[in-house]
């Protein structure tokens, strides 16, 4: 790295400071031929129907147990592309940096992105950097866009769930949201027990789509949590969902943090899980495929789609009662007492 210890407005000015930042930081970590050309955009040699997704990442704090904004910016978009039934291939990233951001922090974030890009098997092919004056941003904002090749014959969409379909969940829910809220609230639960689940799940999603014909719908429960995701799919498909609460995995640290803060783990964001709606007859095979994947721990079949109560999700609670599972309104707010 150069002697610059902090981001300055000049780093976004397009002159020598920008050039230094691009060459010494970004190209060092994201080295690949396409990016090294430093053209205004990148030519992609992809085939077939493509899937594309974009997301802006704003997180406080920038570094949290289990990840950081860089890892999140890669995983979030890679996962969204994979949820289209596509193999993620290329990424674009735009950085909005706040004047005064320690260069060491930026380097840590970029290194984390590069590591995750390697793990996900994608390439960062183009990017942009802007700097805003001190006080006009929260350190770093990152927007990423991803493109992937839709797997042959695969057609997944939130509109395709049908009565009788089975609903699979790839692992415990709420860990990301609980970890972030706990850091903000200053709650510590035994070392780093409470960690974000931030991870790429593209490998598992691609393996599932390749092996199982009857995958109807894939979605990662980020903002709005599992509750929001299930409501979206039920609404879009015009089916009812019946979900068994006792089968929804929630890690013990997340459960404890939710009790302290008055939050519902089903409404908290995950960043490394996904829901798969699969045709009844293919559910067992889907569970076998997913269960064998390293990025899937705690796979559970949590319920099924029904023809009754279209658009509504009914939760069979762990004590044997039943109630509506609705999406939360706005950001989750910790309670008073």
């Amino acid at each position: 790295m150069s002697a610059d210890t902090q981001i300055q407005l000049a780093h976004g000015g397009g002159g020598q400071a920008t050039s230094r930042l691009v060459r010494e930081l970004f190209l060092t970590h994201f080295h690949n031929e396409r990016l090294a050309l430093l053209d205004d955009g990148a030519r992609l040699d992809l085939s077939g129907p493509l899937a594309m997704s974009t997301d802006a990442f704003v997180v406080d704090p920038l570094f949290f147990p289990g990840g950081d904004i860089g890892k999140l910016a890669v995983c979030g978009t890679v996962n969204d592309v994979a949820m289209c039934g596509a193999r993620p291939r290329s990424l674009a990233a735009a950085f909005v940096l706040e004047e005064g951001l320690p260069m060491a922090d930026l380097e840590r974030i970029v290194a984390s992105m590069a590591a995750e890009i390697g793990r996900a098997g994608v390439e960062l092919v183009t990017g942009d950097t802007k700097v805003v004056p001190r006080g006009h941003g929260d350190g770093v904002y990152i927007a990423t866009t991803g493109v992937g090749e839709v797997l042959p014959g695969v057609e997944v969409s939130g509109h395709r769930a049908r009565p009788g379909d089975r609903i699979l969940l790839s692992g415990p829910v709420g860990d990301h949201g609980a970890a972030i809220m706990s850091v903000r609230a200053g709650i510590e639960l035994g070392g780093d027990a409470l960690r974000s689940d931030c991870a790429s799940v593209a490998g598992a999603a691609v393996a599932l789509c390749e092996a199982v014909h009857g995958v109807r719908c894939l979605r990662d429960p980020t903002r709005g949590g599992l509750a929001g995701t299930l409501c979206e799919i039920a609404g879009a498909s015009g089916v009812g969902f019946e979900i068994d609460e006792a089968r929804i995995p929630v890690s013990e640290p997340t459960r404890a943090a939710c009790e302290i803060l008055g939050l519902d783990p089903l409404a908290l964001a995950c960043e490394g899980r996904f829901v798969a709606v699969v045709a009844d007859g293919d559910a067992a095979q889907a569970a076998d495929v997913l269960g064998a994947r390293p990025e899937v721990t705690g796979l559970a079949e949590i319920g099924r789609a029904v023809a009754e109560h279209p658009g509504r999700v009914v939760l069979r609670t762990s004590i044997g009662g039943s109630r509506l599972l609705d999406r939360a309104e706005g950001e989750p707010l910790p309670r008073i007492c």
Partner: protein
Amino acid sequence: MTDERAALAALLRSADAASALARAIRDLAEGLGTVRLMEVCGTHTVAIRRSGLPSLLPESIELLSGPGCPVCVTPDEDIDRAIAMAGLDGVCLCTFGDMLRVPGSSGSLERARASGADVRVVYSPLDAVALARRSPERQVIFAGVGFETTAPTVAAAVRSAAGLTNFSVLAAHKLVPPALEALVAREDFSVHGFLMPGHVSTIIGSDAYSPVARQHGVPCVVAGFEPGDILLAIWMLLRQMRDGRAEVEVEYRSAVRPEGNLRALELMGSVYEPVDSTWRGLGAIPASGLGLRASQAAFDARLRHPVEVAPSKGRPGCRCGEVLVGALRPDGCALFGRSCTPATPIGPCMVSSEGSCAAYYRYSR
């Protein structure tokens, strides 16, 4: 937490335990006729609705939410005062998260923030003190809303702010026992038993409810927050009814003592004193709130940053007041689920996550 402890604790929310308790409740309920029980605490309301517990009870048992959601019972005037203070030059108003969206006569703290007021969510009043220490150029006001559960921590914050000239508290705390006594004295009171709040009771102690049980003859059980705790407490209430008793019993024995938490009470008493207070739904109740003592005037936001607040005109059609005293179920209000939803709340019971209307809307509609 050990795995074994977690596994055992999970029994409190297991279907087996719940169905055994529900069976015992059904047996007791036979012959008691219609039973109306009130859970006083908003956290109980959420636990009950979230667990789907009512679907396990016989139809003769009706659970009503009481005046135990701190946001819900805070009158418009106090919200308006907080909004007005947030609009003063150089002021940073700190509050707990669930106060943000509560509508006052016009607007909310969230809207005030969007319009440029410095409104911040804190997790502890001590965070507001730390902010005041870091920002000598700002006047930091903490909006102290809540029951006896939160008042001691706010009192601790005031004590820790000794010497600071830019920290003050807008005291709007409420006390549970006087409100319950006012509630049972109403002519339209028709509740057969109270599920008493677990958290508040750890501070004030179960003896605080003796007048409600002894003088007014209403059975009381202090309950914990797992579905199993709540079911057991309902069973204990029914048993009192069957036996013709009206006592204060404690289901939440691990946390609640008859005399409460004396250190917390002493801390609270050193900073606050009881004052007359207005409750949404119940109106003005003598000595049912907490105000800063004269010795703490330097931290009293009402004295330090006086603002004019017009009397509230109320909300046409909103029946939160009746809901809060158990006189009306949320879905009995004509606005419920139509013009009043969590996205467009008209009354505070729809705003707070612990409000009875929000809980009904979210889990039971």
